[in-house]
């Protein structure tokens, strides 16, 4: 248990140090050391509990309860202060509503609701710990080099807020550990609120008008989710009689009607945090932040807290149709529409954002199905999405600083201009959508779980969404792959901290894909068995191993096979006399020079945001309102 406490406290300590010590060199050392220790401790914890079932730790303390309340209050005070300064009434009101409920729960019920076993570890937690500890810390290291460049690009005399930035990153990690370790839902709620506040401050980091606006959009939506969470706690106190997450789930399985409304509230909280439609706009808006923030929010923290909660609740969804249908449909509609909308985006970060939301949708849908197979799939989706997406964000961030754009159309010829980076980016992209990489194996398992439950609507949605996924990734890869002439290599001055993190993610991706059968046996299956008492009827091991072999082939081809060919090299055919291959210039019929240009397809009129977004927003809002109404009726009947 000491390890758990250490992991929750240590990043927070580093955060304080980074904030206080404002020297650049000292910060570099602190961040690297802090990240390394966090990662090492996470791995150590994982080794200690590899393949474990549920292990609860006796831990309850009035001091900790009080501290949680104080932290929640501080969060609200900060939010209200910002809301007043920027005259945003809605955020202020929501924050105040939340704190009223928090204090009411705390003083009216909390002392009767002692949770004797406040902390726990199970195999899902172990996996989350590894994701937070390794990927999250890796991103912090990456941020060192990135933020140095970022600060250099700022106008002269701009205030250096990097201490705050790194402090927030590390607090984020602490808060995530609190979420995944806490069996006491009141503590979990505190971690939940801290992540909301941290991402608010990180999104607003640049203090531009757009950043502030998007930060407030984030805080409003996530405060709404937070209110859902605290209402669930209130219901736990008044109806269920426990704050223990695992007792709650047990009661939920035994007596679905009793916890119905609380489960709907928690699911709502998870859906907002996971940026499911109609709340997708906060994650899209978060793109204004520096890239390491996006990487952190998308891959290892924040949104993963949302789906983590949903996956935890999966056994409750399995026996309770109302929240199950709500979560399933919200997730799958989000997956479909966001995959479509990703086709119409030229901004690389927006493509990544839509793909994140879509994949979170898929995880959400799996959680809603709630069978052992679906949970297996959801867990792997969380893992592979975290690795591949962080790799992609880091690559896009570095490319942005060196080619001066995050537009995919400007990534022409990246394979020559930044040869190493382009290969990593291609690896990341392939990791996101194509067999035999883990993400697709997880989608495969998703499909199998849908088929076994006869969820025809979900199967069809998955089929069409996957097709759209192919489209937007393949055309991006194609842009990267182009080779013409000998453009200048611009990646020589990429900082070593950036390379180190990118390399780490790439190695993790390949290792996780090759070792997928092993990860399944040591982490994912133990969790499924500990929750459901049986393993799912998953993909057979021989297929997983065939996949591993294919991964090796692809990686070798990408990093070793793509060299110079011995063949004679000639220019491309341009229906005329070629003048310059690098620019695709040719001599036209008037003996002038013409340029051949080609753009990718974005099909704005078919898959544009204007057509797609309203459908999802309206549909999902109505769906959730209906679910809440049904749950209320259910409570009234009980």
């Amino acid at each position, binding site marked *: 248990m000491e390890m758990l406490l250490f992991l929750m406290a240590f990043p927070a300590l580093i955060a304080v140090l980074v904030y206080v010590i404002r020297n650049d060199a000292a910060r570099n050392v602190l961040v690297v050391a802090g990240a390394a220790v966090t990662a090492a401790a996470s791995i150590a914890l994982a080794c200690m509990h590899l393949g474990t079932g549920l292990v609860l730790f006796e831990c309850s303390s009035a001091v900790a309860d009080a501290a949680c309340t104080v932290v929640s209050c501080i969060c609200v005070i900060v939010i209200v202060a910002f809301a007043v300064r920027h005259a945003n009434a809605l955020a202020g009101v929501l924050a105040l509503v939340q704190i009223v409920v928090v204090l009411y729960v705390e003083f009216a019920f909390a002392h009767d609701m002692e949770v004797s076993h406040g902390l726990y570890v199970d195999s899902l937690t172990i996996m989350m710990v590894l994701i937070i500890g390794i990927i999250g810390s890796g991103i912090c290291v990456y941020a060192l080099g990135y933020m140095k460049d970022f600060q250099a690009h700022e106008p002269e005399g701009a205030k250096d807020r990097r201490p705050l930035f790194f402090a927030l990153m590390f607090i984020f990690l602490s808060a995530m550990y609190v979420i995944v370790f806490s069996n006491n839902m009141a503590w979990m709620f505190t971690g939940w609120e801290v992540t909301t506040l941290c991402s608010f401050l990180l999104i607003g980091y640049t203090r531009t008008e757009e950043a502030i606006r998007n930060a407030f959009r984030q805080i409003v939506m996530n405060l709404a989710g937070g209110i859902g969470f605290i209402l669930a706690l209130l219901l736990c106190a008044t109806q269920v009689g426990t704050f223990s997450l695992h007792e709650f789930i047990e009661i939920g399985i035994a007596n679905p009607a009793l916890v119905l409304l609380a489960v709907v509230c928690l699911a709502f909280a998870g859906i907002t945090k996971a940026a499911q439609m109609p709340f997708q706009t906060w994650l899209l808006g978060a793109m204004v932040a520096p890239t390491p923030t996006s990487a952190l929010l998308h891959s290892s923290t924040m949104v993963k807290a949302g789906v983590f909660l949903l996956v935890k609740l999966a056994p409750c969804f399995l026996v309770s149709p109302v929240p199950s249908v709500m979560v399933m449909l919200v997730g799958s509609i989000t997956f479909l529409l966001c995959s479509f909308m990703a086709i119409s985006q030229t901004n690389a970060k927006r493509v990544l954002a839509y793909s994140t939301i879509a994949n979170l949708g898929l995880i959400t849908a799996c959680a809603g199905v709630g069978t052992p197979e679906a949970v297996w799939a959801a867990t792997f989706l969380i893992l592979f999405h975290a690795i591949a997406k962080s790799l992609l964000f880091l690559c896009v961030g570095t490319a942005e600083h060196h080619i001066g754009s995050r537009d995919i159309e400007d990534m022409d010829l990246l*394979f020559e201009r930044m040869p190493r980076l382009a290969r990593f980016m291609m690896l990341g992209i392939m990791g996101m959508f194509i067999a035999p990489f883990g993400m697709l194996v997880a989608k495969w398992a998703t499909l199998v779980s849908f088929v076994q439950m006869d969820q025809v609507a979900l199967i069809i949605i998955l089929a*069409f969404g996957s097709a759209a996924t192919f489209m937007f990734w393949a055309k991006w890869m194609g842009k990267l792959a182009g080779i013409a002439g000998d453009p200048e290599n611009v990646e020589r001055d990429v900082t070593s901290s950036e390379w180190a993190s990118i390399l780490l993610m790439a190695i993790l991706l390949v290792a996780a894909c090759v070792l997928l059968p092993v990860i399944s046996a040591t982490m994912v299956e133990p969790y499924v068995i500990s929750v459901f008492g049986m393993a799912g009827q998953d993909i057979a*091991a*021989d297929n997983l191993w065939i996949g591993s072999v294919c991964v090796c082939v692809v990686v070798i081809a990408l990093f070793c096979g793509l060299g110079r060919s011995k063949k004679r090299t000639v220019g*491309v055919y341009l229906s005329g006399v070629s003048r310059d291959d690098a620019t695709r210039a040719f001599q036209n019929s008037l003996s002038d020079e013409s340029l051949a240009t080609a753009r*990718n*397809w974005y099909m704005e009129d078919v898959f544009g945001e204007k057509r797609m977004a309203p459908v999802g927003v309206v549909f999902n809002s109505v769906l959730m309102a209906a679910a809440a109404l049904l749950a209320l009726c259910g409570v009234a009947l009980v």
Partner: protein
Amino acid sequence: MDIQGFAIQGFVAVVIGIIAFAVLAPVVGCLLAGVDRVLSARMQGRVGPPLLQPYYDVRKLFEKEGVTVNGVQDAYVICALIFAIIAGGIFFSGGNLLMCVFVITLSSLFFIIAAYSSRSPYAELGAARETLQVMSYEPMVLLFSVAFYMATAALLPFGGWGTFDVSAVFALDAPVIVCIWPVFLGLMFILTIKLRKSPFDLSMSHHAHQEIVRGMTTEMSGSTLGLVEILHWCENVLFLGWIGLFFVWGGPVTLIVGVVAALAAYFLEILIDNNFARVKWQFMLKSAWAVALVAGGINLAVLAFL
């Protein structure tokens, strides 16, 4: 036998299947391509080339001087061929149908990247259109796999769970076509796209005198183009295998029925190829998705709920 034993056995079977497919598929595919040439000529009132003409063509391609526009295109094409062969091996060794579908998609991706890498405006346009073609047919292909699973669930004598394993067809009481014929029709529709036959030969065509020259293969020549031809032969054999899958049941003897059905489907594709003009991408996308939604969706719903 324990689970580990099964895993190793399945793995070895697939490896043997891959080797066998690598040897046999190009031969069969070459003959099929020859038949295509002869039949097309007869339909157009010509005598046409000898049956082995595709073989002579490819042999000649390999004898040509090696010329390329960049150093990486060959590697991509080789990857595409390797994965097409792996996909075929998985299918014909009785392996997992979904795995086969996913691996052949990987092969398509490598071919698309190969075309993109040339930076030829024509190849790039062809590659963009090919991406669209993949997006058009992919839903139907996935629904076909799911339908196969559900059909085996309904038709396997011991009942209950279905399977994605192709080898399970030999244990069926009746061919899967009896309960998933709408999906079969849907698959036939998108097969034209997958085989890049007219009216859906948007990304490349056999004739270089068109608006995008030869599309994806504009900048491929010599041995590279030879490999692309072999790739298409292998793909054709695999896709016809999918068609045959609908008609096999009971025991290996029924394979004859499957082969006859596949050949009939191939003849139909040639007939369509010779009788339709190319359509625009909008029509392709909408029609292919509509077919997948109607044929696949209704069929699955019927299987699931009735």
